[in-house]
């Protein structure tokens, strides 16, 4: 199976090229995209089975030894993150195809989407710091265009915020890489591990702080997250769904990978735990202040990243396992919430809670999807969020991080609070404009929603199809809850594997 590893990358890469060649032929592009991502997902699952008991697959690109050339490394952490990521990418793609308006505005959608997938694959399987940077560049540019050309006029402005901050960070990232190379003479993770461990602890800390800051912006931790809630909600829902589900997690993945492989000796736990707690709190309070479904959910992206950083900061295998498990749960659950938002947006042309109401009555099944995902996000049993939250609370208690554990617990109630705000505003209740005194003319302009019969059969049909696509993702989150036992075991094994950087170095350098 080792020889199959590069195909993980080549499949979406060639898919991108093929989609470009099919420029203008929407259906062909759609088929290419679905086939490429499905194939990639299947391969990823097969490779996951291969490494599930602790093996590491290594592929030296061009046959050059690590350091001279680039090495692809596929361990359990890569496998878990990548498999869930690809599953979500595929589900969202199907949703985007079903949804009228996302991918038929421009032929560039599918190539960009596949390029983003390529970037995600590369980021998770590369064993090279500079190559990791390239992966981020691919993701950045592809996501920038996905954001802007699905979002309309607002998208350009939001896109500028997004791209300017990320480009500034890219420049700093380059400086950091140069610095690391200067001090160690290599950019291969496995060799960096050795080189960095030879540096004095103080110097290691500086390097770590630099990389943590850069990845922290990508992961949207406090106080570096402001770009996220300003740009994500502007895009069309499928795009936001995949951004919110995936992109920040690639940053978190980077933090986990680099902390464990390159900086095992740096004791940054306290700083990370404090930052994590602040991220959770500020994110969730930001969510509470919003009155738009997509904006609320975007702030939650930030808040939930705090949980993962908390897990990493506890600095035990259990904490890391909790962070990994939390990430696996978070990717589909967040994407599914945005997709439900997308269905609502498709039907009502808005996600503002003030203008929505009574969806629970008109679309009971859609509402059920939302409530399942929302309760999972808030960590209610028996959903995946419960296992994820419990894993972190347990690790926090065992690691004696009582204050931050208490924060994590309270934030989960505030999460519930804001989920209830969405539920009360959009699914229960009635639109605010119905309560206001309005002239009949103004009323006529608003779309009338009769309780019994939807106005437009075509719209009704597309809403149903979209709901089914969203249900696929909610299904993934439910499946995660069902297999939480084995999945937690795998996360723990992945954590233990990366906690010992020698295993990684030995596999790559042998």
């Amino acid at each position, binding site marked *: 199976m080792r020889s199959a590893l590069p195909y993980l990358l080549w499949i979406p890469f060639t898919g991108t090229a093929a989609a470009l060649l099919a420029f203008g032929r929407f259906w062909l592009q759609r088929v290419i995209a679905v086939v490429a991502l499905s194939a990639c997902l299947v391969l990823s699952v097969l490779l996951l089975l291969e490494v599930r008991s602790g093996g590491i697959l290594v592929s030296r690109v061009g046959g050059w030894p690590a350091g001279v050339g680039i090495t692809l490394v596929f361990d359990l952490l890569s496998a878990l993150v990548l498999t869930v990521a690809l599953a979500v990418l595929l589900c969202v793609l199907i949703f985007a195809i079903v949804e009228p308006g996302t991918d038929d505005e421009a032929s560039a959608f599918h*190539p960009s989407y596949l390029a983003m997938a390529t970037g995600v694959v*590369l980021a998770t399987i590369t064993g090279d710091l500079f190559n990791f940077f390239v992966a981020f560049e691919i993701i950045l540019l592809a996501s920038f265009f996905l954001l802007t050309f699905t979002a309309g006029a607002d998208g350009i402005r939001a896109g500028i915020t997004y791209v300017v901050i990320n480009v*500034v960070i890219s420049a700093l990232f380059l400086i950091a890489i140069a610095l690391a190379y200067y*001090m*160690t003479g290599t950019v*291969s993770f496995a060799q960096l591990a050795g080189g960095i461990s030879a540096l004095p602890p103080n110097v290691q800390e500086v390097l770590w702080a630099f990389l943590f800051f850069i990845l922290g912006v990508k992961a949207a931790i406090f106080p570096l997250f402001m770009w996220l809630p300003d740009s994500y909600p502007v895009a069309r829902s499928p795009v936001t769904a995949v951004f919110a589900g995936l992109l920040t997690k690639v940053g978190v993945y980077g933090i986990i990978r680099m902390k464990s492989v390159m900086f095992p000796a740096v004791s940054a736990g306290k700083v990370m735990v404090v930052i994590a707690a602040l991220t959770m709190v500020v994110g969730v309070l930001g969510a509470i202040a919003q009155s738009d479904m997509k904006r609320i959910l975007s702030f939650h992206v930030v808040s939930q990243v705090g949980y993962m950083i908390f897990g990493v900061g506890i600095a035990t295998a259990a904490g890391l396992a909790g962070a990994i498990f939390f990430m696996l749960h978070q990717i589909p659950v967040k994407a599914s919430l945005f997709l439900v938002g997308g269905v609502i947006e498709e039907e009502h042309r808005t996600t503002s809670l003030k203008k929505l109401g009574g969806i629970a009555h008109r679309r009971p099944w859609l509402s059920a999807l939302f409530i399942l995902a929302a309760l999972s996000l808030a960590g209610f049993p028996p959903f995946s969020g419960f296992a994820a939250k419990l894993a972190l609370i*347990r690790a926090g208690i065992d690691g004696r991080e009582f204050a931050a554990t208490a924060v994590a617990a309270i934030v989960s109630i505030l999460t519930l609070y804001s989920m209830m705000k969405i539920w009360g505003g959009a699914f229960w*209740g009635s639109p605010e404009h119905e309560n206001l005194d309005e002239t009949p003319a103004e009323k006529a302009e608003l779309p009338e929603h009769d309780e019994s019969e939807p106005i437009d059969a075509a719209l009704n049909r597309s809403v149903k199809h979209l709901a089914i696509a969203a249900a696929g993702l909610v299904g993934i989150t439910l499946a995660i809850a069902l297999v939480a036992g084995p999945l937690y075991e795998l996360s723990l094994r992945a954590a233990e594997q990366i906690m010992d950087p020698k295993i990684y170095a030995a596999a790559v350098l042998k």
Partner: protein
Amino acid sequence: MTYLVVAHFAAALVAIPVARRLGGKAFLLAAAVPAATALWSLTVLSRSASTTSPGEVHAWIKGLDVDLSFQAGGLSALMAFLIGGIGVLVFLYSYRYFDPAGPEVVRVCSLLLAFAGSMLGLVLADGFFTLFLFWEATSVTSFFLIGTEFKHAAARAAATQALLITGLGGIAMLVGFTIFGASTGIWHLSGVENAGSQTLTGLPAVALVLIATGCLAKSAQLPFGSWLPAAMAAPTPVSAFLHSATMVKAGVYLIARLSPVLGGGPWRALVIGSAGLTMVLAGWRALRQDDLKLLLAHSTVAQLGLLCFLFAMPDRRAWVAGVVLLLAHALSKAGLFMGVGIIDHSLHTRDISRLDRLASEMRGVAAVMSAGFACMAGVPLTLAFAGKERGLENLMEISPPWFYAAIGLMVVASALTAAYSTYALRGAFFTSAKGDVAVLGRRPSLGFVIPAGVLTFAGIAMALFAKAPEMLLGSAVKGATGKANFGIPVLPHVGSALVISLLALACGVGFGYFDRLRHFASKAALPFPLGQRVYEAINVGLIRFADRLAGVVQSGSLPIYVATITIVGMGLIAWYLAAIDIDLGALPLAGSVVELLLVAACGVLAAAMAVQRSRVTAVLLLGGVGYGLAAVFVVLGAPDLALTQVVIETLAVVVFLLVVKDQPAKFGRTRPVGSEVLKIAAAAFAGVVVFVLLAGSEGYRADHFVSAEIVEFSVADAGAQNVVNAILVDFRALDTMGEILVLTIAVIGAATLAGIETRRRGRA
């Protein structure tokens, strides 16, 4: 047990299509499910005098000690009986209560079944997390049931309030369970019981406080009590089932399970204090209510307080009294709620001041309610009387220093119960209305009244035929105290306890009967804010704080974001950098004078660009910085890099000029001066930090660089004379391919954006 619990949820799903077709009749069918629970629990109760039935365990998340496990001890079986028995009556009652064709029938029927399943799971649960799972499930189903009338803002708010407060308790409990398990290694209730009596200190004691907090929130004790009166927005069958008989007893139940074995520690003091205060304050609040349903709600809070109070007592005899009262209260209160629902249905009001001598018109209901109030207030010859009697007697036998206070509280609470019971009964059924009289609509059918009657009269019947309660309570009492034979006295035992309780009863009846006395008592103002107002204040404060925070953090200004990110990031680096000894004075500032001059020129050009107001000049100055850098590269001995830089810079300047061509000649000056200062500060700070960082890294240069091997490999193995080419197309070809992808996407993306923009303008 697993099957029984799962069957409830399966039935809840099946109920959706069934109720759609059958309407209200679905309630009659659904009643079969709780009936099965009741029968099953009776079989357990009848045989478990010998042993507790074996547990069932299903693995779930082994690594976190989470499983799905059930075990039916005496108390669990008693609770299961209440859930099943009262459940049947609630379903029968619902059949009459709801409009059979109403839209809420499907929802309520399905949710009530799901709730019954959750509640059953809760009382049968053995593993901590199994208990927590069903605990939260009851909160969620309760949320939806309270929100049955979700078009009313009050119902929505009440549902949310209940979910948030019980959820807060739930999370405290989850943390408590985790701490308890992690520090003792015990993850099951049966494990706690098997470990025998123990006094806990340290972490487990903290854990117990957290668990007790969850119990208090669920059972609506101070300071969490506000959600229960608000939850009265739910339809009456829901109130009768969830918010009087079963769900609110979950906290009481857990306290009762833990209390006999986990001695000492602050948790007892917490529960006794909170419950003691609650039973008096809530009872006193009930006295002020005109709405019958609200009166019952406050009374429920008060009675739950009494139960928590008794169960948390360190003496097991108080526990026995608690379990008797638990049964008595569940029966009488559910019946009373149903009675109020009937009144509401027939007269469309629950306001005592509008009810006019109902006893003459609704004899059946009057009888049912009288029995219910008598049972609740603990009139002699009722189960509650026996229970209270026992509680008082036991309290008088224990003598820690605070027992006078405890007895005092109990006496006041009983007097208050008697007072509001008298007031409600008299006001609704035996006195004329004060306001406009509510008109009796349709007389309630017999089927409507019977379920309520069964419940309220059961409280009397059980006191008279003591075999029944002994059978129901025997194994629970044996589990807790080790003695099966406890005897419920039908006739009061003459002693000081009797005198005290009769005195309390008389006082209470007096207060309730004489309006002037009641007015005097109820008008007294409370010196501190309670429940509802605190909840609202927190709610408003939270939103206001969040708004303000979001306003500060999320200013929407890109320069501020960039500045914040740079300052924070560089600050983090500087903080760590400060720990390293760097002698900046020893570092050579530049390799040569030329180098220094070039860098200075770049700096001047950059500064000039930043203050330049003409766009074209700014672009040219930016180009100048780039060419200056190219010159620096030349001096440093990298001519190939310099060439690349010149090409890129030239291209960039040309493209920039083409873009600027269509724009106003000058930048507008709209930004406030403060933001300029911030930007300059951020840039300067970043520059200084990066400079110090790079200059300081001088001493940590690696001994060996892979570039050495790369040169070696490129000639020997890659067959390339030009190392840079070998790197680009061979050693690091993957990077190059990635960058090609980046460029391709950039081209397509830019072209598409331009196309969309053109089309958009074309349309407009």
